[in-house]
Structure formats: structure tokens, C-alpha cells
């Protein structure tokens, strides 16, 4: 049995007094690829922000187990936060070169000379020839690849991905999925992936969770989730019959 990385208990989160997430209990394990699926507004991105320690739940506890003592947003120190990486649905790059964007996190950590590492990473995302291009000139797919590269280069123990392939063409979707698979296989990075694409969840995830209206409907290993869902709403979502 893998180690618990996150333990959520009675977690609730709200914006402007509207509850957007209610999770009685959820454990996320080291080394797994957990896909959070569900329609827009289901609370997937909110949950991801809580997991990234960017926000703290208004109720309940979220413990991240990176070392000996479990941490929360309030007591997470910078070296602990730096073990997490996140890729956003709409990445915003700095108005600098692609190279500078990929190297940004390393520079924050005091690593000045990171050219070789950055070159290798640019090679991995097939963007070596765009190293000196300004970030603002990139296409949507290239932008998302750079966003993924700037997170991957930091070798995070945990990578949180918010719809990393939304609105991308099949070529870019394939590239990003390949990178994620490689990252998981080579470095055993734990991945938590938010997607509304059930096919992507099926291709990548080891476990899948369905969120609806801020509630966790079902969580199960990928095969069980897709082949024998317990909840009728899960079955409806998979078959595309769930109207939302």
C-alpha cells in the first residue's frame, strides 16, 4: 500500500458564502495518477488550489504528508511548498524569453547557471528552437508546454494539473500526455489531474474521482471506475448521458 500524501477530512470551501466544495474524506497516495473528473463548476479546480496550498479550506483539515509532520497551508514553509508543482488551465508566462520562463523556478531557488538543464527540458517539450522566442509570441499549445516545462524542471514530488490540455489540438494533447506519462514512470511523480475529458482520464489515471456540485460522488481505481461504476451518476457521466 502506498503512503498517504494528502489526507482530507470534512473539507469545505466557499467563495462569497457559497459552498463550492464538500469532501467528507479523501486520501491521495504517493506515486498515483489521480484524475478528478466532472463538469464545469463541479469544484475540481477549487480542490486543486487547496491541494496546491494556494488556499486553505474554510472548514475541515487538509494535511500534506511530505516529511515526518503533516503540514497545512498555514504552516507550510517555503521548502515544503517548493516540492509541489502546478500547471494552470490558462498559464500566464512572464514577458521574457521561453528560456527565462523555464528557468524561472530554478533561479528562485538560487540556481543561476541552469542552461544545460533548461536545454534538456526544452528538448523534452520539442521547443529547443524557440528557446529565445518571447513568451508572448507562442501559440496556445506551445504556451501550455512551456508552463508544463517550468513546473517539471523543478522535479516536484507532486504535480497538480488543471485541465492542461483544454482547447489544445490532438498533436499537443499527445505531446503533453506523453510528457506526463514519462514523468510518472521515470520519476514516480504523483500527479493529480483535473480534466473534464473522460477519455484522457482513462488513458492516464490510475485512480479516478468524479465530482459533482462540489461533492465527491465516487472514487475508484481507473478500471473499476470506467467498467463497473457504483454510482448511477458516474455511469451517466461516463456514457455522456449526464446532462449538466
Amino acid at each position: 500500500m502506498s503512503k498517504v500524501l494528502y489526507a482530507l477530512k470534512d473539507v469545505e470551501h466557499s467563495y462569497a458564502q457559497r459552498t463550492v466544495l464538500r469532501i467528507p474524506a479523501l486520501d491521495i497516495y504517493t506515486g498515483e495518477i489521480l484524475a478528478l473528473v466532472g463538469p464545469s463548476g463541479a469544484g475540481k479546480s477549487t480542490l486543486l488550489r487547496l491541494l496546491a496550498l494556494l488556499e486553505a479550506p474554510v472548514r475541515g483539515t487538509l494535511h500534506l504528508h511530505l516529511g515526518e509532520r503533516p503540514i497545512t497551508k498555514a504552516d507550510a514553509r517555503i521548502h515544503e511548498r517548493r516540492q509541489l508543482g502546478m500547471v494552470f488551465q490558462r498559464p500566464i508566462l512572464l514577458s521574457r524569453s521561453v528560456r527565462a520562463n523555464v528557468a524561472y523556478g530554478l533561479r528562485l531557488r538560487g540556481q543561476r547557471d541552469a542552461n544545460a538543464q533548461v536545454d534538456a527540458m526544452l528538448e523534452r517539450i520539442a521547443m529547443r528552437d524557440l528557446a529565445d522566442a518571447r513568451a508572448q509570441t507562442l501559440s496556445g499549445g506551445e504556451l501550455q508546454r512551456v508552463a508544463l516545462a517550468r513546473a517539471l524542471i523543478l522535479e516536484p514530488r507532486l504535480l497538480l494539473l488543471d485541465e492542461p490540455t483544454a482547447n489544445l489540438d490532438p498533436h499537443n494533447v499527445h505531446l503533453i500526455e506523453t510528457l506526463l506519462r514519462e514523468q510518472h514512470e521515470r520519476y514516480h511523480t504523483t500527479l493529480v489531474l483535473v480534466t473534464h475529458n473522460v477519455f484522457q482520464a482513462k488513458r492516464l489515471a490510475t485512480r479516478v474521482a468524479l465530482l459533482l456540485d462540489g461533492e465527491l460522488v465516487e472514487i475508484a481505481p481507473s478500471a473499476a471506475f470506467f467498467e463497473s461504476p457504483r454510482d448511477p451518476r458516474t455511469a451517466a457521466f461516463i456514457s455522456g448521458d449526464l446532462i449538466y
Partner: protein
Amino acid sequence: MLASAALGIPLGAWLALTPFRGRRILTALIYTGMGLPPVLVGLIVYLFLSRSGPFGSLGWLFSFQAMVVAQTIIATPLILGVTMSSVLAIPHELRLQLQSLGATHWQTTLAVLWEARLGVIVGLVAGFGSIISEVGAVMLVGGNIEGRTRVLTTAIVLETRQGHFDVALALGIILLALSFVSNSALVILQHRTGAPS
């Protein structure tokens, strides 16, 4: 100018990035400060530095220091206000994304300020313009003393009053040239930092 930049840029960034009660009122006050009449600033500084004023013991009235104080008060709200608006225009989401890459609060602030550099430089240009063209306040608190507190603008006023229009015009051209050179330097800085110009 240096004092105004040293005060205005960090304060502008801080105000834009730190939500607190009363920020709107403070913002309105800063925007009012951007249009402060220089003569009024000169009068207030004069009253504060005059012998019977609270800072009279400093003996700064009709000195270079008094002129620096007045010009700092005039230029700071301009630099601060423009910096604040430029930082506010940077999407909040960028800060979250930088934090997710492991940036500390300080590193995030620096990066956001860098992204807002076009506006910051515009603020510096505006602040510099207000200082170099200013005449009322420096006349009041500096006294236009030859060799000590006479600057180009006050010299132009004096020469005009004495009917030396050719000298006044020549000084005006020098003032314009200085302004052009300084602003060109700022535009080059803008270009070198990669901000669109």
C-alpha cells in the same frame, strides 16, 4: 527624483498587492495627490520650514534641501499612482502561478513589478516631467538665489521679468533638450527591459 522613485515604486507595488480596509480612500487620496498644485505644495513646505514652522530649526528654507522636499512631494504621488495602476493591471492569477513555482512573497512582488515595468517607467517619465518643468514651488521654497537655488525654470522667469527674452528662450531650449535627453534615456531603458515602447 531618486527620492520620489525610491518612495513611489515600492509603495505603489505594496498598495496594489496588499488588500486592506481603507485602500479605496487611500487610492482616491493618491490620485488627488497626482494633481497637487505645485504652488500649494510650495506654500505648505514654506510654512513647515519657515522659522516659526515645526521644522524651522532645520534652517532649510531657501536651500537646496527645501527644493528637494517640495519636488519629492510633487513627484511621489505621480510615480506611486501610476505604479499602483500598472501593478493592478497585472492578472492576479500570475501571482498564484508564481507562488506555485515556489516564489516567496518578495519574489512574487518583484516579478509582478517587472511585468508592470512599462507603467513604472511611464510613472518615472511623468514624475520627471513634473519636476523639471516645475517653477512655483521651487521659487517659493528655494527663493531663486543665484548660485544656490536658482534652477532653469526660475531663471527663465527672472530673465523674462527683466526683459531678456533671448536668454530666457535659450534657457527654455536647454530645458527642453535636457528633458528630451532624459526621457530618451528612459525610453531606451524601456526598450532594453523588453517592455513595448
